[in-house]
């Protein structure tokens, strides 16, 4: 069953809320604050706010595009809109982007797991356990993936919200001043960096054929984006307010470093990292599952493969093998930053241009 065949599984538009939250939130829970603060310094919170408005606008455009072709996914209509050669290039571009993104995400996850949980265990063991779980879920199709997201939503959000509330006490407001001391330029740059961390939004274009009424999906999609942005806002303000801009610059994982500085005497838990690491595991696993689905089912559709499960195994094996290609973790961090910029093209630019060209050329799918 390809993405096309699987669209008989109809879902309520409200599933976009957990789908976007769990699809977007991933390893960057630990890292994204650094890149945004590096660009916008103490005004990074403004970048997040500006980014939220911009991302919401693009999400609206993505849903408009999906609503023009309610029974198809991007791979199916890109050829109709752009012509066959460009359509094939776009499809291959996305598949390559997802494969690379999945590998870096996995490499990040392995490294974090080694540092936080299992320093002495060979990486292959947790990797195999993650692969078994992801393949098992993905084999059941997108409906199962979405249900799994729905089950995990509360376990992801509640600790993060608690963490946000706990961090309020330790925030030093003087770290946020002076506002806009370097002008609007760094804020805009920070906004672009923040927007690049939204890998996962493009999956709307592949979820759309499964949704009963994609036109009514704007509201749930925006709620999902606002929840993600709220979490990002909490992360950035805690990082600036607790660590300060200079310390964030030198931190590899500001998310976890910020939490380690929180101090709340008398609270039953002394070290709050657990409140971030467990949601982080959920966020990474769900995003891995989503991209494994997109990549394997995308390949099944593109190459018209018959053996769906074999394709999932092959993709998982390839992606897990690809993590061996990263020479060291510093290289992965730098590579991940470049990938965020590439993300801007695949998440925002291509879908927006596709919508514009579809409108100009009057292309529309069957209803």
């Amino acid at each position: 069953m390809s993405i096309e065949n699987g669209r008989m599984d109809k879902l309520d538009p409200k599933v976009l809320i957990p789908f976007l939250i769990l699809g977007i939130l991933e390893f960057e829970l630990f890292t994204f604050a650094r890149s945004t603060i590096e660009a916008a310094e103490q005004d990074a919170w403004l970048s997040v706010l500006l980014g939220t408005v911009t991302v919401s606008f693009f999400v609206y455009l993505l849903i408009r595009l999906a609503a023009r072709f309610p029974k198809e996914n991007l791979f199916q209509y890109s050829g109709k809109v752009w012509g066959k050669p460009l359509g094939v290039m776009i499809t291959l571009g996305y598949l390559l982007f997802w494969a690379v993104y999945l590998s870096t995400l996995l490499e990040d996850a392995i490294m974090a797991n080694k540092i936080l949980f299992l320093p002495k265990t060979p990486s292959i063991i947790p990797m195999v356990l993650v692969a078994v779980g992801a393949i098992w879920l993905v084999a059941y199709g997108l409906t199962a993936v979405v249900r799994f997201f729905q089950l995990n939503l509360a376990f992801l959000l509640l600790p993060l919200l608690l963490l946000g509330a706990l961090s309020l006490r330790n925030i030093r407001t003087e770290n946020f001043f002076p506002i806009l001391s370097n002008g609007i330029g760094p804020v805009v740059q920070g906004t672009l960096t923040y927007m690049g961390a939204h890998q996962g939004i493009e999956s709307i274009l592949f979820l759309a054929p499964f949704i009963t009424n994609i036109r009514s999906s704007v509201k749930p999609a925006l709620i999902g984006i606002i929840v993600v942005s709220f979490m990002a806002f909490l992360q950035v303000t805690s990082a600036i307010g607790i660590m300060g801009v200079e310390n964030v610059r030198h931190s590899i994982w500001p998310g976890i470093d910020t939490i380690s500085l929180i101090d709340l005497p008398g609270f039953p838990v002394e070290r709050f990292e657990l409140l971030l690491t467990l949601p982080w595991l959920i966020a990474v696993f769900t995003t891995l599952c989503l991209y494994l689905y997109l990549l394997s089912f995308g390949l099944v559709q593109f190459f018209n493969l018959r053996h769906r499960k074999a394709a999932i195994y092959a993709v998982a094996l390839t992606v897990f093998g690809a993590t061996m290609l990263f020479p060291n973790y510093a290289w992965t961090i730098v590579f991940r930053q470049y990938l965020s910029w590439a993300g801007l093209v695949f998440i925002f630019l291509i879908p927006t241009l596709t919508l514009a060209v579809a409108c100009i050329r009057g292309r529309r799918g069957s209803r």
Partner: protein
Amino acid sequence: MFKFIRRNRGQITEKPSCQPRESSPIPLIEVVPRDTQALIRGTKLRFSEDLDYNLTLLAQRLPNPQLVCEEFAVGSLAQRKVTVVYLKNRANPGIVQEVKDRISKIKAETVLDGSYIERNIQDSSLSPFPQVEVTMQPDVSESALLQGRVVIVVDGSPEVLLAPTTFFDLMDTPEDAFMRWPAAATFFKIARYIMFIIAVSLPGFYIALTSYNSDALPTQLIYLILESREDTPFPIYFEAFLMMGIAEAIRMMLLRLPSQVGSTIALFGGITLVGAGIYANFISPSVVIIVTLTVISSFGIPNFDLRVAVRLFQFGTMVLSAFLGLFGFAMGAFYIMIHLAVLKSFGIPYMTPLAPLEASGLNHTVFRESTEIMAQDETYKPLTGSQTKNKRSDN
């Protein structure tokens, strides 16, 4: 009042009603109370082992012409009567047909008990989660019929089967519906879900935290735990397995002994073993606290089969946590949730109304809404037209 269809080897004969039948005399053994679950409110009546009595009881509680009862004869060597009961205007025809099809396909020599039917009609026999609810209470069956579910009555079995079943059906108790104040009912319901989570995860989480990630615990608490384990020769996970094993042994012993002496022996055995174990430094008090809390929490789960599943999951998460710490614990939780996300009962997703989310259903599953009539959701509601197509394909 009560439409009766008799089905034997593919032939269906319709009888006017089974309502006017003379009530069967209740055997003396049925008068002896079964203390499987204490009831605060609600009927004290129970189903008996007599099929006609059970059907009459249902018909008396639900005197409605839409109540349909279809009889099957199951067993190639010794046939046993199995009756499918449903409300025609409430039950989803697709689900009713699916139940009937599965019963028709049973190839057994005889049916010793309702559980033989259960294991033959459930969606997944490998799943530890029960996909058919078992009850002895006519009010629970009546409520199931009104929700659009199907009741399966087996001759000779005092328990009836309710299908389809979701996780939230198994976490329900009649008191949730009968309690006067909805806020209190909601409180107890939520407490029950928290107890479920504690029962599944506490021993594994404790092993993971203390064996691998003790830095997450407050300094004073970790000192206390270390102090209590100072003279204990075994690692924490071994202690936890030992204690959980003892708890299981006591639980099994209780089931096999007469209730008059069973509780005394269990109390004496438990206190002696734990006291001697702590005194001899075989086990630490912290592990005793964790295991006792887990056992108490597991009794918050009302359904016996679900409790059995939880016990297996306890050991599963303990093994994963013992080998891989918090990461292993999280993977164990993911595996359970993946299984729950893909499991279905007669086409209904097992975690409905949470996944897929149906807000209307949450009001009488996770919460108890304040209504003057019985709360109903759309989980088992018959669908029409394109809705049916979409919903069934979704399942």
